[in-house]
């Protein structure tokens, strides 16, 4: 009955290359970077930025689920709250975008600390439910509080000037700012996974009582990864508010928590690159199929059913199995 140990999260580390990461990881990061630098000239930049925000969100979530073994069903709270705070900071307080994002991120971190320290005392499905419960309270707060604008959300958020200097109104300029945040985020996550701390997390995920008996105060590690994950989810949410100039209830609703689970699983939980792929697939689907009405819902449903039945390690998970290397 426990989700604490998941069968497919097994990012075992093999052949470490020169730069401290396996060569094929290095290659993928490089290819991703090249592609993303070129992307705004090939694709609609705002769309790509949306993918990047959600990819970072999914990666942050995956840090907790795939590598911490903790299934949070309330990650919308950190994503959405950060987005509200950063929108409010930019619009009402007139902060520059980077400060607004930092403000949102800090709130997510504090929220993660508060909720996390209560939730980590529970296991498996009960952990998931405690996080859901708190997220629903955050949703309720967002619905009722004055500064969030209720159903309307915070609209017309100014993109502002980066460091007070660079005008972000042009989507191309904004794009590179977002790209920088994204890369900083996933590289940090990569490092966390492959750090001494990451090793302990893995041990805890695999056999918690044993880790305790070795003297690890496991709750502190769980809390630490929870807060890191919430914080990074906050970065993603805060950035999204600046990109779309809007913070709304969608981002704090439980379906958003569900969506990030879907992205992670579809891409491959416990893989480094899976959540990025998962986020890209889902955001693309929502974006380009919006004209088909209910058939989108049906199509999404079919995709999930097929994914669960035939490639449940997720897209990247399946690829990793083919090439027999962790991705």
């Amino acid at each position, binding site marked *: *009955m426990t989700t604490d140990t998941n*069968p497919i999260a097994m990012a075992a580390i093999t052949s470490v290359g020169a730069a401290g990461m396996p060569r094929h990881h290095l290659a993928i990061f490089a290819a991703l970077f090249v592609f993303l630098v070129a992307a705004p000239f090939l694709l609609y930049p705002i769309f790509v930025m949306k993918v990047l925000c959600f990819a970072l969100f999914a990666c942050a979530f995956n840090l907790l689920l795939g590598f911490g073994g903790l*299934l949070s069903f309330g990650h919308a709270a950190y994503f959405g709250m950060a987005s509200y705070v950063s929108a409010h900071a930019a619009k009402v307080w007139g902060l520059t975008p980077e400060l607004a994002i930092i403000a949102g991120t800090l709130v997510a971190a504090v929220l993660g600390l508060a909720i996390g320290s209560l939730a980590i005392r529970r*296991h498996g499905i009960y952990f998931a439910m405690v996080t859901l*419960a708190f997220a629903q*309270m955050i949703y309720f707060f967002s619905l009722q509080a004055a500064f969030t604008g209720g159903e309307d959300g915070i609209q017309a958020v100014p993109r502002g000037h980066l460091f007070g200097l660079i005008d972000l109104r042009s989507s191309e300029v904004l794009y590179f700012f977002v790209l920088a945040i994204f890369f900083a985020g996933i590289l940090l996550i990569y490092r966390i996974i492959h750090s001494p701390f990451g090793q302990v997390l893995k041990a805890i995920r695999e056999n918690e009582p044993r880790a305790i008996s070795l003297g690890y105060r496991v709750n502190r590690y769980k809390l630490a990864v929870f807060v890191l994950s919430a914080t990074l989810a906050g970065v993603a949410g805060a950035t999204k508010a600046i990109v779309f100039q809007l913070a709304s209830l969608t981002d704090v609703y439980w379906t958003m928590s569900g969506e990030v689970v879907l992205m992670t699983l579809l891409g491959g939980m416990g893989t480094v690159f899976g959540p990025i792929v998962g986020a890209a697939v889902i955001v693309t689907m929502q974006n380009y199929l919006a004209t088909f009405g209910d058939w989108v819902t049906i199509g999404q449903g079919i995709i999930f*059913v097929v994914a*669960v039945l035939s490639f449940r390690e997720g897209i990247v998970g399946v690829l990793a199995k083919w090439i027999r290397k962790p991705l």
Partner: protein
Amino acid sequence: MFELLGIPPQVLFGQLLLGLINGSFYAVLSLGLAVIFGLLNIINFTHGAQYMLGAFGAWMLLNYLGVGYWWAVFIVPPIVGVTGIVLERVLIRRLYHLDHLYGLLLTFGLALIIVGFFRQFFGVSGLPYPPPPLLNGGYNLGFMYLPNSRAWVIVASLIVCLATWFIIEKTRLGAYLRAATENPTMVGAFGINVPLLVTLTYGFGVALAGFAGVLAAPIYAVNPNMGADLIIVVFAVVVIGGMGSILGSILTGFGLGLIEGLTRVFYPEGSAVVIFVIMALVLLVKPAGLFGRSV
């Protein structure tokens, strides 16, 4: 006028009674969910859609075949159960050996498909389902007017809940079911037909959802979206009761209905969130829910 906590007692009693009626729905739905989770380890996210199917089943019987409510009460749950059995045989079956996350995902996907189709073909404004003559009218209880249709909901769901509880906790069949949850291989090695057992259990849990749907049809509009948000609340009920605890989900279902009823009087906006507040409090104090077996 005499008042209780600033509310006239009539209103208070009325609200409590309404809470109990609501609680009946929670109880039947969460019972089905608990049966399926407890015995199959599947978090059945299709449950809301299957509840909706129950209501649509009743509606279709009436509109296409002219079959009335009282027949529907008996015919629809088995039909919905059979659709569940088909899903189980064809799809869900393949996931038992996996983490329950996958079951959740699959059933979530199925719910999207089912609800999507119904929205496509029946729209979302909802379809009317007239209550049968016997359920028209009601009793004036002094403090409130109790429609027969709602009184019937309480009675019917109590009967169904108790019968289910008895079968699972007190009979041999129930023992097989519980054992098969934990270690189907071993139970099979005792000579028991586990796959059949599992299929029937899923069918039964789903039939409970269908039953709740039939009960709901004359009360709420028959609407493809009627189960969508309910599922998460019902799931919370199951968790508060203690996952897999049959008695827990029944009692919690009724109990939370009452609490929600009270919230509607004192802080109506909060009635959507009160269940989650309670869930957080309960889980922080009792790690495995109110009636859960601690692991």
